[in-house]
C-alpha cells in the first residue's frame, strides 16, 4: 500500500511553496461559496485544469483517480437537485464541488508529504501558547503514517488466521484482536519513544530539576 498521492514531475506548481498553494485553495473555496455564479465556477474549473494539467504537468489519470470516487455522489446530487430545485442550481452545486475537489487534488499531487506536514506544524504554532509543542504534532503525524501500513499488515494477518480456521469475515472478529494488538504496540512504542529521548527538553537550555 502506498501512502503517497504526490506525483513528482518538475514544474513551477510543484516548486511553489505548499503553504501558498493551501492558501490559494482556501481562498478559492471561500470565493466559490460567497459568489455562487456559474460563469465564475466555470472559469475557476478551467483555471484549475490549466494549472494542474498544463502548468503542473500532471497526467490526466492522476486527477481522474481522485475525482472518480466522487462522481457517483455528484451525479446523485444532481438528480436530487432536479427533483427538489432546478437544473441550474444543480449544475452550480455540482460544478462547484467538482472544481474544489480538483483544486485540492492538484495541491495534493504537487506537494510532498513532508512539506505539508511542515505547513501543518506552522499552522499549529500558535498552539504553543496553550502548551502544545508544534514539533510534537509533526511527530505524531509521522508516527501515524508509519503505523498505518503496520496495522494494516496486522489486520491482514488476523484475517488470514481466521480464514485458516474457517472463520466468518465479520467485523467483530477482526476488531477485537486488532485493538488488543494496537494497545500492546502503544505500550512498547511509548517505551521506545522514552528510550530515544522523546521526553527530553528541547534545546537550547537544559533545565535543572528540583533545584
Amino acid at each position, binding site marked *: 500500500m502506498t501512502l503517497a498521492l504526490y506525483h513528482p514531475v518538475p514544474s513551477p506548481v510543484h516548486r511553489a511553496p505548499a503553504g501558498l498553494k493551501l492558501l490559494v485553495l482556501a481562498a478559492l473555496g471561500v470565493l466559490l461559496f460567497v459568489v455562487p455564479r456559474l460563469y465564475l465556477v466555470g472559469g475557476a474549473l478551467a483555471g484549475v485544469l490549466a494549472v494542474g494539467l498544463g502548468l503542473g504537468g500532471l497526467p490526466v489519470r492522476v486527477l481522474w483517480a481522485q475525482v472518480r470516487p466522487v462522481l457517483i455522489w455528484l451525479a446523485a446530487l444532481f438528480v436530487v437537485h432536479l427533483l427538489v430545485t432546478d437544473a441550474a442550481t444543480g449544475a452550480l452545486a455540482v460544478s462547484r464541488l467538482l472544481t474544489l475537489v480538483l483544486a485540492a487534488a492538484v495541491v495534493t499531487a504537487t506537494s510532498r508529504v513532508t512539506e505539508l506536514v511542515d505547513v501543518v506544524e506552522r499552522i499549529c504554532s500558535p498552539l504553543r501558547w496553550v502548551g502544545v509543542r508544534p514539533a510534537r504534532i509533526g511527530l505524531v503525524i*509521522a508516527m501515524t503514517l*508509519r503505523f498505518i501500513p503496520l496495522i494494516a499488515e496486522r489486520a491482514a494477518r488476523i484475517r488470514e488466521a481466521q480464514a485458516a480456521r474457517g472463520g466468518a469475515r465479520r467485523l467483530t472478529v477482526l476488531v477485537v484482536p486488532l485493538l488488543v494488538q494496537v494497545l500492546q504496540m502503544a505500550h512498547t512504542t511509548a517505551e521506545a519513544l*522514552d*528510550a*530515544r*529521548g522523546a521526553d527530553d527538553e528541547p*534545546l537550547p537550555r537544559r533545565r*535543572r530539576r*528540583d*533545584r
Partner: protein
Amino acid sequence: MTGWRRRGTPAAVAAAVPRTAIEVRRVGHAYGERPVLHDVTLTLAEHRIGVIGGNGSGKSTFARLLNGLVLPTEGQVLVDGLDTRTDLRAVRRRVGFVFQDPDAQIVHPTVAEDVAFGLQNQGVPAEERAVRVAEVLDRYGLAGHADHPAHLLSGGQKQLLAIAGVLVMRPLRVVFDEPTTLLDLANKRRIARVVAELEQDVVVVTHDLDLLAGFDRVVVFAAGRVVADGPPAESVAAYLASMA
C-alpha cells in the same frame, strides 16, 4: 549515595561522569499486586553480559530497570553512580535500549528520518545529524534504503534499523531485549555479529543461547531472582539443568 545526587544531577555534571558500572542494589519490582523481581543485587561492569531465564522470570523487567524504562519499587539502580530515579535523562543518554520487536520502535515512515529521531530529541543540529545518520546507515548496510519506507524492509533490516537508531545517539552501553527472537537463522547471526563488534558495553536478554558465545558473564533469572551468575558455560549449564 550522596544527598545532592538524589535531588537530581545537573546535566553537565552527569555528562562528565566516567563509565564505571551499573549497580543494582536490593531491587524489587511489582506491577500492582504482582511481584516480578525480588531483592536483586548485581554489579554489572563486564563488557558483554547475557541475561537468560524462562518466560516470566523477570529478565525483561530487569533489562528495563537498567535505563529507567521501569523504575524499581524497592531499592536503587545506579548507572555510573547516576540514580535512574533522579537522573533519568542522563541515564537514558548513557544506556541505549533495543527492543524485541523493531516494528514497535520504528516511529518514522522512512529509514533516515527514523534514525535521525533520537538526535533530534537531543537537539543535534541538522548538518551534524545528516552526517551521523549517513555514517550509521552506511555501517549497517542501510545506506541504499535511506529514503525508503521502513515497512518495506525485511525483518533483519528492521532490527538493524532499530539498532542504528540507538547507536547513532552514541550511548556508552546498549541493552538488548531479545533482539533475535523474531528473526530467521541468517538474521540471528547477522545481529549476533553486530552485537559482538560493538565497542559499547552490552547487556543482552535472550532465549538464544548461541548469541552468548564469547560473552564475559551470564546471569540466570528464575521467578524474579538471580539463580546463577558467572562465566557463560557454567551459567548456561545451570540454566539447562533447571529446565530439564
